[in-house]
């Protein structure tokens, strides 16, 4: 495994290459509080091309910002920095990484060659509809610069993910991507945002190996 670091906004992002190869890469996006896998996960071993994995800001070997302020959009921007580096990729996201992958695909519909959404930590976030706001608190003694950043854990477990917001991104993919099947949902979890995305004809339920064997040919 080789690791390169991307300077992006005020983050230093660790991008791991798990396996070299030809063709467009598979980019793995981890779940909340996780980090990139050290070895190639069994489920993606059938992938033909290179396999890479990103540590989001505040996770794994990436830098830890001071004072929190995490949003899924900032993490989407982390993954977009990889697109700038590698060119088009297929995304495979676990939990939080699946939601971030949907946002990125909807925002860069011609630069993402398919997304697979897997179960994982942070799939639901703070739910689909606004709830009573709260003032999050993290013990200062836990803020020692190590990952995962406690602010990421607190803020990205409570962010609201409206179904209409996810549906808008799915529609962007449907209209602007050239793929007939663009997003494969391999998770058992069905948060409201994901159910809404599944309303789009280009978002389908599929097992991961079928999904990857389709996307690897693109």
């Amino acid at each position, binding site marked *: 495994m080789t690791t390169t670091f991307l300077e992006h906004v005020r983050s230093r992002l660790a991008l791991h290459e798990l396996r070299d190869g030809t063709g467009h890469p598979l980019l793995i996006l981890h779940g909340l509080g996780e980090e990139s896998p050290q070895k190639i996960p069994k489920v993606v071993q059938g992938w033909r091309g290179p396999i890479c994995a990103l540590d989001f800001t505040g996770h794994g070997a990436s830098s830890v910002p001071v004072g*929190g302020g995490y949003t899924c959009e900032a993490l989407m*921007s982390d993954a977009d920095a990889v697109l700038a580096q590698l060119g088009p990729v297929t995304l495979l996201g676990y939990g939080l990484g699946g939601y971030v992958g949907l946002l990125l695909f909807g925002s860069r519909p011609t630069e993402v060659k398919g997304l697979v959404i897997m179960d994982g930590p942070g799939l639901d976030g703070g739910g689909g509809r606004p709830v009573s706001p709260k003032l999050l608190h993290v013990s200062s003694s836990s803020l020692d610069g190590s990952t995962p950043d406690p602010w990421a854990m607190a803020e990205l477990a409570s962010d609201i993910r409206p179904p209409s917001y996810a549906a808008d991104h799915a529609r962007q993919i449907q209209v602007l991507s050239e793929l007939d099947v663009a997003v494969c949902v391999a998770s058992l979890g069905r948060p409201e945002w994901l159910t809404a995305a599944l309303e789009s004809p280009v978002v389908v339920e599929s097992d991961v190996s079928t999904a990857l064997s389709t996307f690897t040919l693109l």
Partner: protein
Amino acid sequence: MSNEIDVIRSLLPQARRPDRSRRVDVGGIEVSVVEWGDEMSQPLLLAHGGFDFAGTWDLFAPLLADEGFRVVAWDQRGHGDSDMAALYTWEADMRDAACVIESLNTEKPIPVLGHSKGGGMMNQLAEVLPHRVSAVINLDGIPNERGFTNQVDRSDVNALASELSGWLDHRRKAGQMSRRADTIKGLAERRKLMNPRLSTEWLQYLVTVGARCDDDGWRWKIDPTLRFGPSGAWRPEWAIPRLRGLHVPYLGVIGTVKEEMGWGTTPEEAFQILPEGAEFHALADTGHFVHIERPDYVAEIAVEFLGRVL
């Protein structure tokens, strides 16, 4: 250079720089806190709007201080003299506001006043910390069901595509960006595009307090990684069903002339959602910056309100 500043500031003798400033740790980064008025007086917290800074209170805050308040304002993270952060969210700004209140070491709840985004923040502060807030004054920061005036139409595929890719494009180069350097006059003219109703004298004054003078010119002290315009799933209208639940005395003031920076809430819309018993003023021939266009009048109704309810 200081001569130019003196000349510009002399054109607005009623504007007054704060009496004191200090820095407050808000969890590893520091925000700049400024105060006008006697330290022993009743505290009143002011929250500025997005892309503004505490210096935008220089006309309004002294009027309140002269009426016997210890007026406390802070620069939101990334704005003015506060530290820049790696990440920004509404929720982080809310935590910073709570830290500023903590820094006052007051046991009693205090009145709070916010403009625009700051008004929305103070609405939420009264909900999440009801025991810390004794009254809310909201200056043109009352939400409506239509969202922000400048919000993209999310049903328009091309408009949304441009918005989403534009935000990411900005992030791709944001780490290397700095704000554009210009003369005081040039920065004031650019700000007038977004604040067309504010006087040139005021906008030039703002440059002298909200920008810094580098070797190649003046730059606004606002983090260049921040981008104007809403992004993300959060919507101001989420607060609408909860406003009625605020059980503190409430004064709402809106300007009736719609502006790009404003929220576009009509008096009818505002009146329907405000807390029971709220006092409400819709100012004719006044834009979004009610406290800058009509500082004396807005200070008068604020002081009268606070005198009655505290």
